[in-house]
Every structure is written in structure tokens, then in C-alpha cells.
């Protein structure tokens, strides 16, 4: 992965203004460059440190808890950057061709091209979802959504809520909701309690993070909030909206009434852009997913493309900051500029330690591998196209399908508006089981442009089209 320094004249381009993107921008600015910083949101911070809209008054401590100082530092950096970078908020990168990105300015639906020579992708992550019966009902949200509702809008997803699934977010969000005065009826952790203990020894390598986790758990227990382990979601009930949740625990079924349900199984990387840019992917056991490969500096397999943050594997917000800075240092190195080698070494060591901690975390919040065996046939798998688990299982069997993209072609899974963001990993689990392969061998959905839906309104010059002008004088293709 050698990235040539020669003839780099354009400013570096950064996609994503979360912790990784902001630290990358800051590092480049410090070196005297004026990077282009593109972000879909109105303000910097990403999802984890998302800022509330103007006019909201809650202090950082109320919004971000233990992470308040981190969040404030990121926001301060973002504000300081505003007049030192070419900042493009409300902007979606929907495609790339050659050395130019295709942008959509979301508010006025305007097209823009953005040429690049050095491109840092800090595209972040979304919740990792495993569907269950009723998961499309109003009132059922991802854990991330439940947190955004509270942090960004000062709302709760219901007056009486249940949080389910696994991952560190589970307890944090339960804590945040309870703290905000919302009734948390239960926390349903899909991992067995023993997993926490077995993992705790190695988590001690990262005492602050481990302590935070224990603290949330202790806080919830001290307030008598029900916490269940080895609890597996069976169904969200309700006709037009959620009114309750059922789960299974050691062979027994349980039920609770609730208005809101947040669930998720840790996070998954947003890799579409790396894929469209032809970065090489490899299967990552820890993330149980195909991810764009990067070297210790964050260089991808494609010359000039750098990867930072959760978009290239889930490492968390702190690691995203370090990876963002590191990717920026790689950009500077590749421009032939001098960089602080000691700093590089330090960042790499921090990232290495985080990786070890992340492995321990995976032990504490293991992926529920039995999901694909146990999920019922009538569960909707793809919420865009309304495809059920049973339909997918049947197709895998009837057609002896072995590859995710063939499954997509036959079942429509991943063909809807979200392009498989919500159902793709679950479909891969079903395919792996159904075809007797590993999840790695089942492959991955190839990303297709546009990265998100592209409005026809992007071509406002429609009226100027003259009938004599055609795309190409060629025959109609069947």
C-alpha cells in the first residue's frame, strides 16, 4: 500500500464530520492545509456526539454523560475548523467515478462534483440489526435511534420502554433514558451473564471503559430496573403500534407491556463508498463482516484513499479520533510533508490496545449466532421490500444459492431504498446456515450507487432538454 506523493495539488477531502473526520481535518489544518470536509448532517459531531439543534439548552453533561468532555472537545474543534476548512454540511456523497465524487446538496437538491487526490473516508456506522417478529411496528427503533431521539430531540421513544439486544450501547441508553425520567421496564441482554464475567478479566486492560460499563449496570440495578440475561427477542406485539414485547429465556417465554422498544446488536460499518471506490475488502472475524482493508496508518488498498473510524471496522469513538488523526498524518506523509513519528507511534499503540479491548468486548457482548437457526419463517427480513425469512430460506434451498448477490437477485433482499443496510447482515447469516458455508464465504452485498436515494430533482434543468438531444444514438437495449 504505497501511496505516491508526487503531484498532489488538490486539498485533501474528508467524508464524514464525526470524531474521525473532525480530528483528521484538524490535523490537516494544523499542517497548513485547507481540507474539504463533507458531511450529511447540519453540524459536526457524527452520531455519537451529535449536537442538538439551535435553541436547545441542555448542557453537554446531560447529553453525553461521561463523554461530555470528549463531546465538548470535538464540538470545539469543529467550531474552530469552520473557517479553516471548506465545509460542506447537508451534503451526501452518492457516487464516485474516476477521481471525482458526486455530491448532492440535500437541502436545495443541487448537484456538485468534488475532484480529489487524497480522500479520507470517515463514514461511521449504524446499528447491527437482527430482525424479529413485529420489528417494523411504530414504536420499535434501533438503540442508536433511541439515543438520537433523546440527545438530539429531547424525546423518548415511548413513556415505558424496553431495551434489548447486546453491545455496550444497551446499558448506556437504558441509563440515559432512566436518567431523563422515562420508565425503563426492562433491559433484555441476549448475552448470558457468564459472558460478562469471562470477558471482564481482559476488559480490565481498559479500566476507564470497563468501569463505565460497570457503573451503568450498577446504577440501573440500584434503581431496581429489571435486567435479564440470555434473553432473546421473540416478538413485538401490537396492531398499528407497539404495545408489548415477548422474549425467550432458558426455554421459557416472557412478556411485558411497553410503548417503546430499542434494540440492536452492536454496530456495523458504513462501507458503501469504500466499495464504490474499489477498495479491497477482507473478512474480519471480530466484526463478522467484510471490511475495507487498511494498513496501520489507515491507507486503503487504493492509492489516495484513507480509512478512519467506525466506517472501516467498529472500534468506538475514542479510537475514531486517533484513527482520524493517523489517517491525516498518512495524508501528510504521502504529500511529502514531515510528520511527528513519535505521535504516530503513540496513536498506533492506542489503537492496538483498543483492538484488544474490542476483542474482550466481543466476549462480553457476543453476537447471537443462534439467531439464524431460530428466527421464525414469518418474520419480515427486509423492511423495504417486505421479504420474509421464510421466502429467503426457501430460495436458498430451491436454487442452491451460495452467494449474497445471487440471493439479492432472486429475493430482492438489499434491493430496497436502504440497500441492505438494515437486513444485509441478517440475510448473510441466513445464507451461511442455509448453504452450509461460513459467513465469510457467503460473501457480501456489493455496494451500488447511489449510496442513498437520489432525487430526480437533482436535474432542475429538465425544461432545457431539447427533444433532438438524446443520450446516444443507439438501439434500445433489452
Amino acid at each position: 500500500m504505497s501511496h505516491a506523493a508526487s503531484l498532489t495539488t488538490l486539498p485533501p477531502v474528508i467524508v464524514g464530520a464525526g470524531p474521525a473526520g473532525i480530528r483528521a481535518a484538524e490535523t490537516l489544518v494544523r499542517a497548513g492545509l485547507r481540507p474539504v470536509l463533507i458531511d450529511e448532517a447540519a453540524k459536526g459531531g457524527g452520531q455519537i456526539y451529535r449536537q442538538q439543534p439551535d435553541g436547545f439548552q441542555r448542557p453537554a453533561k446531560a447529553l453525553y454523560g461521561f463523554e461530555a468532555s470528549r463531546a465538548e472537545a470535538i464540538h470545539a474543534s469543529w467550531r474552530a475548523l469552520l473557517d479553516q476548512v471548506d465545509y460542506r454540511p447537508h451534503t451526501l456523497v452518492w457516487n464516485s467515478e474516476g477521481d471525482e465524487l458526486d455530491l448532492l446538496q440535500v437541502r436545495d437538491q443541487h448537484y456538485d462534483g468534488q475532484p480529489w487526490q487524497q480522500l479520507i473516508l470517515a463514514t461511521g456506522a449504524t446499528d447491527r440489526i437482527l430482525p424479529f417478529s413485529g420489528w417494523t411496528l411504530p414504536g420499535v427503533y434501533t438503540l442508536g435511534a433511541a439515543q438520537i431521539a433523546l440527545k438530539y430531540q429531547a424525546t423518548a421513544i415511548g413513556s415505558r420502554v424496553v431495551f434489548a439486544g447486546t453491545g455496550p450501547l444497551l446499558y448506556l441508553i437504558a441509563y440515559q433514558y432512566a436518567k431523563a425520567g422515562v420508565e425503563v421496564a426492562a433491559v433484555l441482554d441476549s448475552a448470558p451473564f457468564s459472558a460478562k464475567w469471562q470477558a471482564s478479566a481482559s476488559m480490565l486492560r481498559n479500566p476507564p471503559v470497563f468501569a463505565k460499563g460497570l457503573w451503568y449496570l450498577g446504577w440501573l440495578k440500584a434503581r431496581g430496573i429489571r435486567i435479564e440475561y440470555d434473553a432473546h427477542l421473540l416478538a413485538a406485539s401490537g396492531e398499528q403500534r407497539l404495545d408489548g414485547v415477548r422474549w425467550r429465556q432458558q426455554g421459557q417465554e416472557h412478556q411485558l407491556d411497553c410503548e417503546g422498544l430499542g434494540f440492536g446488536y452492536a454496530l456495523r460499518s458504513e462501507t458503501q463508498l469504500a466499495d464504490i471506490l474499489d477498495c479491497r475488502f477482507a473478512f474480519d472475524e471480530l466484526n463478522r463482516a467484510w471490511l475495507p482493508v487498511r494498513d496501520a496508518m489507515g491507507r486503503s488498498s487504493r492509492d489516495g484513499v484513507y480509512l478512519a473510524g467506525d466506517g472501516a471496522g467498529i472500534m468506538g469513538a475514542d479510537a475514531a479520533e486517533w484513527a482520524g488523526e493517523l489517517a491525516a498524518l498518512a495524508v501528510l506523509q504521502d504529500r511529502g510533508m514531515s510528520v511527528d513519528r513519535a505521535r504516530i507511534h503513540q496513536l498506533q499503540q492506542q489503537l492496538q490496545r483498543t483492538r484488544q479491548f474490542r476483542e474482550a468486548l466481543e466476549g462480553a457482548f457476543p453476537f447471537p449466532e443462534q439467531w439464524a437457526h431460530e428466527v421464525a419463517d414469518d418474520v419480515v427480513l427486509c423492511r423495504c421490500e417486505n421479504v420474509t425469512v421464510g421466502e429467503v430460506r426457501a430460495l436458498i434451498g430451491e436454487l442452491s444459492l451460495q452467494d449474497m448477490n445471487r440471493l439479492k437477485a432472486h429475493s430482492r433482499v438489499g434491493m430496497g431504498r436502504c440497500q441492505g443496510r438494515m437486513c444485509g447482515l441478517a440475510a448473510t447469516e441466513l445464507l451461511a446456515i442455509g448453504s452450509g458455508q461460513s459467513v465469510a464465504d457467503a460473501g457480501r452485498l456489493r455496494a451500488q450507487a447511489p449510496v442513498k436515494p437520489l432525487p430526480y430533482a437533482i436535474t432542475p434543468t429538465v425544461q432545457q432538454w431539447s427533444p433532438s438531444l438524446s443520450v446516444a444514438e443507439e438501439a434500445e437495449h433489452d
Partner: protein
Amino acid sequence: MSLIKRVAEAQRPAVTFHLNGQPCQALAGDTLLTAILSQQSYLRRNEFSGQPRAGFCLMGACQDCWIKDAQGRSLRACSTLVEAGMSVWTDTQPSTVQPQGAAS
């Protein structure tokens, strides 16, 4: 009946918008998702199941909160802030398409 519950930041100025032709109150800084789900329990219906949906990820990824404005334009409710005078439709707009059967 509302789906979501406000827990803080009630001091913001009120904003009037139209939901399915009826005037409604929201607060400045609300997303359309917040504004609408403070009034009713869904945002749209899935094209294939006809079942109600109320968004899912709230971060512009799941694409399950698209609604229409009075001009028929699509708006992603989780990532569009409400503005005074906006007119949005979560049900079929009578002027553009004839409703079929009973109004939902």
C-alpha cells in the same frame, strides 16, 4: 395519539405546520419525525404490506421515514427540521390521488 414523548427542552418557541391538511403545533428545532410523531403514531405505510411505519434508525440510513410535502416532494422526516408553514402528508393527499375506500 402521539408515539413519542417529549422529556425536556419545552421552552422552545412553537411552530405551526400542517399535517394532512390540519394545522398542528411543533417546537422550533423539531425534526419532521418529532413533529409528526408528537401528533400521531406513524409516518408512512410500507408500499407492499400497507403496514404503518414510524422511522427506525433516525440517522438517515434506513430510509423508512420518507413523507410528502404539499407539492408532492419527498422529505426524510428524521433529517429535515420542521419549518413554520410547512405542509406535509402522511396519508394520501386528496388533491393528487383519489383515496380508495375509507380514509385511513
